[in-house]
């Protein structure tokens, strides 16, 4: 019975999956090969909770990956990237909306050749009746949480944990000796 129902749902869901969510999107292009502008209504969810039923409070408080459960078709979209061109994820930006229904605008990455489906870069988010907020909070939150890492340059050049890894294993991660030889070649 369940398998028949699952098949029926799959058949129905297939055309839904092909819906166009680009209408009304004002997402800025990142000139990515497989990007598609996409705006849609969704509920912000803890992905692991959705999959396993293990559901801590507040979507894990920042320690869990967050997803967007799309209202139109129930597809679980992975919120992979925020709006900052600074190697920054989307958890910090979406956590305040845990469990809420929101509208998001951004870029969907759809590249079946490498298995990219429902991968999303969120650029802005709003609740029903609210104003748009840019999904660009990571660096502010990082600065607040790392008061001793003040200085010049972007956050990723100053992050204590990243610096500790590089100090221990080098930029290539292969050890300091290989790093030294490689830098001599690279900057000769």
């Amino acid at each position, binding site marked *: 019975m369940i398998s028949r129902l699952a098949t029926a749902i799959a058949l129905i869901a297939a055309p839904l999956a092909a819906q166009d969510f680009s209408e009304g999107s004002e997402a800025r292009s990142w000139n990515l090969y497989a990007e598609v502008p996409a705006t849609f209504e969704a509920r912000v969810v803890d992905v692991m909770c959705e999959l396993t039923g293990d559901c801590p409070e507040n979507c894990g408080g920042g320690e869990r990956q967050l997803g967007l459960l799309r209202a139109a078709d129930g597809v679980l979209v992975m919120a992979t990237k925020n709006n900052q061109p600074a*190697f920054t994820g989307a958890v910090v930006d979406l956590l305040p909306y845990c469990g809420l229904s929101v509208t998001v605008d951004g870029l969907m990455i759809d590249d079946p050749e490498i298995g990219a489906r429902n991968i999303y870069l969120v650029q802005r988010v709003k609740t029903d009746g609210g104003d748009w907020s840019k999904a660009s909070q990571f660096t502010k939150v990082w600065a607040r949480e790392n008061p001793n890492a003040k200085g010049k340059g972007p956050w990723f050049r100053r992050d204590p*944990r990243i610096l500790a890894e590089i100090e221990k294993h080098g930029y290539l991660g292969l050890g300091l000796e290989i790093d030294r030889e490689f830098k001599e070649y690279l900057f000769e």
Partner: protein
Amino acid sequence: MKRLLATLAALTALPAWASEGERITVTGEIIDTWCYYSGVMGGPDAVVGSAHHTCALWCSASGIPIGLLTEDGTVYTVLNLGPQDNATGGDTALTLASHTVTAEGMFYARDGINYIVVERVVSDMGITNLSHEDYDVVPSFAIPEPKE
């Protein structure tokens, strides 16, 4: 009809439906999924291994999902990395960036994405993909130029 379709589709979203995970053991490289999927810095081969290690640290530390890329090209999005550490900017995710590991845990698939909740990293082979030999470093500014 539209309401029926939406209801049926929403049913698939219930956690209870998706809770039938499958225990698996997989071997692959811990990668940065954003650079891999988006192509923002080049093709898939350029954004893995030693060439991309520093960038993988940056992305992992900021909470971008990490993945486990197997030899056949399957990517498992890693949701948890052992009982004591999360996979969203957690310390273990950082120390394993670009490493080839064998991990065991529970596998889930939904809406075109494969997921793994890693219960145990069985073995850590370190960085085995010496991609810097072909690509130098990606992005090219990952290693800061020495000051004169």
